[in-house]
């Protein structure tokens, strides 16, 4: 296998290739056009590009898929962000009367970033991740995906790897896109259990009775906790991290546990002791005590950036954008197999560009098709592009995206049918 190590210096050379032959424009457009149910939905959408040397251009918008393609191929953005659907075309925002240019709709989005877990992971810090701490993202996806579907009744969730150290979720249901800012922040707060900044030690407080949503989330955490927290992070195995855990239990329990820990070194059994203490306390204390659950949640529960979810006009990195630092493509995550998702297996732009250059297996067939396609050039370039990404490791991620789009298409069909029925009636 040829070396496909990514070098940021090559990005200017690779991007044109990526946008010309690999970026899945057709699917991308189909997604953001939402079946054409609402007029100008795609046309009024804001895109923003980060170009070479951190030049940042906001309020881009495109009238069609081909215009989007042309512009992206011309500008070769280092990073693409998606913003809201506005009342007017974003690229004309300067020409409309101030105040009337307003963000109307956007997917409900969530951003979970590993840097927010620095106080509870010992394997890495800041922008680094490893397979150990990636479990935190798996837990986050499982908990939020369940709640957004079961509690809030959403169906069309697109989970995307950010390309470096986190995941994004795009809730694409019509009802989600229409939520007010107040509703978005209410949803985000419903889903947030970790409270407080650097001046707060104990970040989770449960009250009695435990809400069904928290109980469901705890089930997920319990599943991962022994392997992830006790083994991989070894939170009860080292003096320093052990103290951090003990800071989260009531004073009297802490003393008792400290004594026990003098003798007991095994992390699993130490945890068992914490559970036993919690049980004991629950039976005797006036106010219910849930410190063992609170510890589990503080170490594993998803940490949302509420500000990203709140605003209708907040920008979020687009799927299939390239991460300029790692070169990895921001790819959709297959939810049926979320435990197996490996961020390090996500292809980099250098890898897929290299894969393009390998000899094609279906060369002959392709040639004959090319000659046939002369009458309809547009068609054949389109086809070639499809064949192109299919020859790379991007293919399977585009397939997940296709599956997601198929699910949404069903809901558009219903909508369009209703609309045409209505038209007939009049």
């Amino acid at each position, binding site marked *: 296998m040829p070396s496909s190590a990514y070098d940021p210096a090559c990005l200017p050379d690779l991007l044109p290739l990526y946008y010309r032959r690999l970026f899945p424009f057709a699917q991308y457009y189909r997604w953001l056009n939402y079946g054409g149910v609402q007029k100008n939905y795609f046309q009024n959408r804001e895109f923003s590009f980060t170009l070479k040397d951190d030049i940042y251009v906001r309020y881009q918008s495109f009238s069609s898929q081909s215009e989007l393609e042309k512009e992206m191929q011309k500008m070769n953005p280092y990073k693409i962000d998606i913003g809201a659907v506005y009342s007017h075309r974003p690229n004309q925002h300067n020409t409309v009367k101030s105040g009337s240019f307003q963000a109307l709709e956007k997917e409900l989005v969530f951003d979970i970033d590993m840097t927010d877990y620095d106080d509870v992971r010992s394997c890495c810090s800041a922008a680094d991740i490893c397979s150990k701490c990636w479990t935190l993202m798996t837990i986050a996806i499982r908990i939020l995906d369940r709640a957004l579907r079961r509690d809030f009744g959403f169906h069309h969730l697109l989970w995307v790897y950010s390309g470096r150290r986190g995941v994004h979720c795009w809730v694409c249901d019509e009802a989600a896109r229409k939520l007010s800012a107040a509703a978005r*922040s209410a949803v985000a707060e419903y889903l947030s259990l970790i409270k*407080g*900044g650097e*001046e*707060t030690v104990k970040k989770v407080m449960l009250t009695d009775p435990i809400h069904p949503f928290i109980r469901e989330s705890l089930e997920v955490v319990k599943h991962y906790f022994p392997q992830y927290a006790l083994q991989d992070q070894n939170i009860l195995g080292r003096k320093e991290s052990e103290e951090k855990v003990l800071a989260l239990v009531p004073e009297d329990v802490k003393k008792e546990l400290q004594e026990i820990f003098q003798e007991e070194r095994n992390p699993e059994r130490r945890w068992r002791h914490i559970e036993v203490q919690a049980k004991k306390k629950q039976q005797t204390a006036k106010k219910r005590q849930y410190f063992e659950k609170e510890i589990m949640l503080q170490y594993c529960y998803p940490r949302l950036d509420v500000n990203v979810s709140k605003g209708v006009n907040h920008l979020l990195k687009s799927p299939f954008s390239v991460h300029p630092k790692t070169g990895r493509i921001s790819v959709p995550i297959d939810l049926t197999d979320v435990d197996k998702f490996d961020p390090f297996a996500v292809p980099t732009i250098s890898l897929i560009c290299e894969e393009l250059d390998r000899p094609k297996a279906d060369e002959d067939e392709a040639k004959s098709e090319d000659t046939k396609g002369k009458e309809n050039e547009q068609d054949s370039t389109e086809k070639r592009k499809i064949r192109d990404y299919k020859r790379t490791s991007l293919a399977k991620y585009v397939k997940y995206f296709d599956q997601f789009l198929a699910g949404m298409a069903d809901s558009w069909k219903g909508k369009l049918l209703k609309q045409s029925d209505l038209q007939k009636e009049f």
Partner: protein
Amino acid sequence: MQFPSKKPKAVTDLKAELYSQPLQFYGQPPLENISLSEFESFAVDRLKLLKTVENLGVSYVKLSDDYKKKLDNEIKTQNFPHGAGEQTEKRRKDHISHFILRLAYCQTEDLRRWFIQQEVDLFKYRFKELECGEKLKFLHKNNLQYNTISAEEKDNLREKLATSSYTASGVKVEEQDFYKVPFQDALDLVRTRKVYLEEGYVYIPHNEIVTIVLNDFRTRLSKALALTARSLPAVHSDERLQPLLTHLSHSYLGQDYSVQKNVGKISLEQIDSLAGKSFPLCMRQLHQTLRDQHHLRHGGRMQYGLFLKGIGLSLEQALQFWRMEFIRGKVDADKFDKAYAYSIRHMFGKEGKRADYTPYSCMKVILSNPPSQGDYHGCPFRHSDPELLKQKLQSYKVSPSGVSQILELVKGMHYQLACQKYFELTHNVEDTAFSLSHPNQYFTESQKVLGGGKDVKRETDTLQRPQENSAARGLTREPAGDESQHLAEITKNLETDFQDA
């Protein structure tokens, strides 16, 4: 003033109909002519009432007995409707005054937020005070109908309904009706996880119905204010009303500290010592973090940056201050100019929309944008662990009894009072003559006590000799020269203004 009116047909009937209910949604603007003097007095009275609502909300647990008693008193004093019985005139005043303040408070985001919050709190209190029958009448009259769930559905969900925290109020699932509404209609209950939520619907027990009603009230009011704002130019061209409305809207927080009064009076070298003496804890914490880590995240930069602007840093000083600190950390000068300088100029209204940002009030610091991972902004009385707060207070040499007094206030959620107590203890004054609502106010008051910062020596003196309390207190009563003039202006009573008007 004349509200947009149609026909004065049978005004008395209309009035009787309009004011037949103790509480309304303010759906219809008043249709009558009123005199300018009535206009003024109604507006001033309601403003006083709303300010009381705000103050009570800070000092007491909302809807606790004390809160209710005090609020009821104020409603009576200001002659607004309370209790049952014939009160057409008071209800008329309630109606008209609400609409006048809409005019005054629709102009900016901050004003709208303040007004909506107080009106919603007032409405909540008044709705809760209604008798059961009146509540139903109210719902009926305003077409607020909600679907109840069947006994069977209730049975199926019993366990889940019971563990969604409202049962804490002691009501059994069997004994009450549950309404099923889209979650968008009960955001406050969703936010706080006080209801069971399934497939996008919330299940609300009857005794929480006030939440849906309030949600509705809030939504309508905020829409109405946005509409009013758009039609405002017409009102503002009225020479008699314009100054009046502006005045009304300016008096909600005393001063907003957005106008720079002392530009250039402070040098960058002074900041460290001022931070220790005259900054409230929230700003002291941000300053300390900035010095230690040479960086602050966005929330902290905004909160601290605007505060510094408020105490008199010029744009040039601010740029110098932030750059100096940031480049000692991971940011080089080039990156600073590219990524951060813009937002600082923005704060001073020199970039982008040229909006002149206003320093955050305590209310804003305490309520909006709570700190999360990596953040040091917020209010230490609200957002720090009590244990850490205690340690911090101790390290700032607050006496043990002082610490416990402060923590007691924090426990009762009286964060601003706790801060004020801290002020009293550290400035050695027994009874402050102001009521704290703004970090910049804390600073101004502190400087006043300390004699404009010139008199550092006196401060240390009094700190060492508590028996000199009275001397220090004298200072707060007799601020010197310009300062007192200035203060008098701020605190000038609305009433006197209107008497001359």
